[in-house]
């Protein structure tokens, strides 16, 4: 049996003489078991060479494992969108609370300094570990490490990505490039149906404040009030101080 297998393998490799090949071909047509063996070995070779399929399966497994690795409670929380919104509210309330506690002065710069804060570090660290997109992940790591220049270079390339544009805006703010930051937040505001709208509006209003465009800032803070945003309380306070 081993000899037969060896013969088939040699035939597949093309290392038989033409005479040997001819007799083997006859065997393949006349002996169904031999033919099946030959077909199996051919198919196995083809399967081994399907690197794209194997990679595809690996990716699917990775996505599934990532999905499964989320704690049951968290998965349950996010089954419906309103839970997702609730969670975002929790985060924003904490950030908002932190910002409120820092409120004191009324000049535009001082208001900005009191109210501006980028995302908290823990949130970023864990997030970047799990974001699949490698470029975004690297960029977010740079942001987290306060390497804003490099973060800007990387994030600016992801021009259609809402998350990238959001952190690009924050990176610009961290490096006092408020005009550019305003543009990044504008991109987010131009997209409908994304979770960063409220934050983008808030940070854009702070940029306008920093750019000394009090009129536009007032307009945006007023719009935040009208949106019934989570930043309502802060916006009310700022508007009162801007008068």
């Amino acid at each position, binding site marked *: 049996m081993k000899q037969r297998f060896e013969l088939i393998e040699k035939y597949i490799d093309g290392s038989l003489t033409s005479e040997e090949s001819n007799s083997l071909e006859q065997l393949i047509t006349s002996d169904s078991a031999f033919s099946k063996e030959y077909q199996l070995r051919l*198919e*196995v070779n083809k399967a081994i060479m399907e690197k794209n399929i194997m990679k595809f399966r690996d990716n699917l497994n990775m996505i599934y494992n990532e999905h499964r690795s989320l704690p049951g409670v968290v998965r349950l929380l996010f089954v419906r969108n309103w839970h997702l919104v609730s969670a975002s509210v929790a985060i924003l309330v904490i950030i908002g609370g932190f910002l409120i506690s820092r409120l004191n002065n009324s000049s535009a710069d001082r208001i900005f300094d009191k109210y501006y804060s980028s995302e908290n570090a823990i949130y970023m660290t864990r997030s970047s570990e799990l974001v699949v997109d490698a470029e975004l992940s690297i960029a977010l790591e740079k942001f987290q490490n306060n390497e804003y220049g490099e973060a800007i270079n990387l994030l600016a390339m992801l021009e259609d990505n809402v998350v990238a544009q959001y952190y690009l805006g924050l990176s610009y703010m961290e490096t006092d490039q408020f005009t550019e930051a305003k543009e990044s937040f504008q991109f987010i505001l131009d997209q409908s149906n994304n979770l960063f709208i409220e934050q983008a509006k808030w940070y854009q209003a702070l940029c306008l404040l920093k750019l000394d465009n009090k009129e536009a800032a007032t307009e945006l803070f007023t719009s935040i009030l009208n949106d019934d945003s989570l930043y309502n309380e802060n916006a009310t306070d700022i508007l009162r101080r801007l008068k």
Partner: protein
Amino acid sequence: MINFYSYYLVKCGYLLVKNRINIYQVAKYNLEETLEGIRRNDLNVMQFVYKELYSGIQFFVTSNSGSESDAQDIFQEALVIIFRKLTDGQLKVTCTFKTYLYSVCRLLWLKQLEKRKTKDEVSIDNENFIELTEETQDVIRQSERYKLYQTHFKKLSDDCQKILEMSLEKTSLRRIAEIMGYKCEKYAKKRKFLCKEKLVDEIKKDPTFKELAK
């Protein structure tokens, strides 16, 4: 307590960011973009497809005598079949991607039920579906066999996998011997044959192989 909340907020933050990316892109992707994303093995697109459509398939399979693990297998296999058809330039989708994927999953699950001799029909259909062509059914059969072969190939030792890959890429035995650190070509040739025999043997011993041969 603080740590507990921090942990979940981190997880929430992750999901918020990630889900919003997904929702944003799902809203953006049309049928062609979805298919092109799968063809390119684009992780983002595959993740969207997974997140958007897996729960429906899971519901279908678990409502028709299957487990969550069955649902996962069926979902993955359906995507592999779509990927195969896309890379072969065979795929023509005239319905929504959701309907097409559901139809492939439905057919795969029916075949599975038939094999298990449980039943040959589903009692709950939670989506629209289309009848798939005989060509697609051929791809399904081929994909089942190849999955078995590839599973056993991946179980081989690293050097066996490498030798087989190199020989199929037409690397000379001399070069294989050099790369693998073997003394001579003859030994490389012997190792190649033994690796292939080990692989074929393991495949033949797998009960799935006999099932597929029926």
